[in-house]
């Protein structure tokens, strides 16, 4: 349809549908996505095979994946993987529990919120890696070192989001609940919690990513057992394909964490307008 025709034709309610056939559009992004991945993989393979990039620095992708599949058969690899995921999960759970509890308490009392806001604004941007020397002194390469860094980094993400969430409560809804003589617990459960839940899920998504970053950092920098430490060892012992293979694994864990967080968000917020509008 040419532009002139489009302006002459009476406006149709579903203009987009008439202009482009629906069916061919649906599968296209997925196909293009696969093509994009293929371009990157083949491109990297060629860069390495042709020697444009020194294969000592960038081994062929096929070699990385061959190493990856060899690793999948090794118990040590799985042990490291379990340690990394466990450290991430425990730290994240602790940060969520602390952040939600503190956020609900601070957010519920205007005085507490005003009294703590300057301290929170000050403590939040302190980079958690500043604590690395301290945790090394206290726990060395034990998992506690990673735990403290993960919790410190993830806690602020959760706390700030929960505070936003509690502040977002509709005053009319809260006053209505009060007029109906709801107790504080019932208000928390049926008024504050539903309002704050989207923020809590956002907090979970952000904190999950940050927690993984700090877990890997602690392993790589301090030497806490896990995949991060394995990457450091592989690199310093000159095992380049294994370095890349492990980085790919860590990246895939990151993708899985993101997908899991988004999935959890959809499951928990199926009733929320922001999720429902995606389906309609």
């Amino acid at each position, binding site marked *: 349809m040419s532009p002139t025709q489009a302006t002459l034709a009476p406006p149709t309610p579903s203009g987009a549908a008439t202009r482009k056939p629906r069916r061919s559009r649906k599968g296209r992004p997925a196909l293009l996505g696969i093509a994009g991945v293929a371009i990157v993989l083949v491109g990297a393979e060629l860069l390495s095979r042709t020697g444009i990039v020194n294969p*000592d620095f960038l081994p062929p992708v096929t070699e990385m994946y061959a190493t990856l599949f060899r690793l999948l058969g090794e118990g040590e690899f799985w042990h490291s993987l379990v340690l990394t995921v466990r450290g991430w999960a425990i730290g994240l759970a602790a940060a969520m529990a602390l952040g939600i509890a503190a956020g609900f308490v601070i957010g519920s009392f205007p005085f507490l919120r005003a009294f703590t806001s*300057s301290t929170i604004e000050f403590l939040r941007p302190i980079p958690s890696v500043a*604590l690395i*020397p301290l945790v090394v002194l206290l726990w060395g390469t034990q998992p506690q070192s990673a735990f403290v860094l993960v919790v410190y980094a993830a806690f602020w993400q959760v706390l700030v989001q929960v505070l936003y969430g509690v502040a977002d409560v509709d005053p009319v809804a809260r006053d209505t609940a009060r007029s109906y003589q709801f107790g504080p617990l019932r208000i928390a459960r049926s008024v504050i919690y539903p309002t704050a839940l989207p923020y809590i899920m956002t907090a979970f998504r952000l904190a999950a*990513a940050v927690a993984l970053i700090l877990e890997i950092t602690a392993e*790589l920098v301090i030497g806490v057992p896990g995949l991060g430490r394995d990457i450091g060892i592989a690199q310093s012992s000159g095992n380049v394909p294994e370095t890349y293979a*492990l980085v790919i694994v860590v990246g895939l864990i990151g993708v899985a*964490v993101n997908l899991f967080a988004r999935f959890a968000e959809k499951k928990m917020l199926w009733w929320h307008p922001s999720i429902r509008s995606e389906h309609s």
Partner: protein
Amino acid sequence: MTATTYAKKAFLALGLPLILLAAWWIASAGSTNPFWPSLQTILQTFPETWTPERLAADLVPSLARLGIGFSLAVVGGIVGGTAIGLSPTLRALSEPVLEFFRAVPPPVLVPIIALFAGYTGWLGKIVTIALGCLWPILLNTVEGVRGLEPTLTDTAKSYRLSWWRRLLFVVLPGASPRIFTGARQALSIGVILMVISELFGANRGLGASIVQFQRSFAIPQMWTGIILLGLIGVLLAAIFKVVETRMLAWYMGQRQIERGE
């Protein structure tokens, strides 16, 4: 504002920090535990540790690398993000790849980049910071450009604004709130990478010297380094906030009106 409201504001802003500092001072006073020196000792050590020469040798290069890396990421992220955000084909093509690269925890870039550039000079560190900061800015720019209101872009087209005018006056300002969100995330990642990139190989820099103190069991000095690093994080966040408030004043005002404040 009356004097009482000022006093109240000052009390709310300073009350808790003072209480916490006092608590730290009292709890650590006369401490014999070598890992937890008294706050008094730490504060006395601070000026002798961070002399102007030391600040010039360690702090300035660290911040310079952070500044260069972050700026590169901002430019690359906005250019790449706008291109991807404007073209549905490019977006579909790159989405799974970006999804992967964003999920890679940035610190693992260090060993990879160490392979290419070595890790003694500036190059490897700057590349690490730039790559780590790139993804949050890029992805938020894509979202910002995508989320532009169709009425706006259509109006701009109807008025026959040229392509680059549309880009400059409609697309980029419209996406700027999201770009700032991405830049804020990137800045905190940048600070992390600034420190981590100095922990590899023989190095100078803020992160390197803090770890040096720790390895040589110069504990009060180590504490001053931790405090300095914390102050830098706070200061950078404050600067960022000032820039954001100035550049997004129109947007924040609009939001306030929408919320009926």
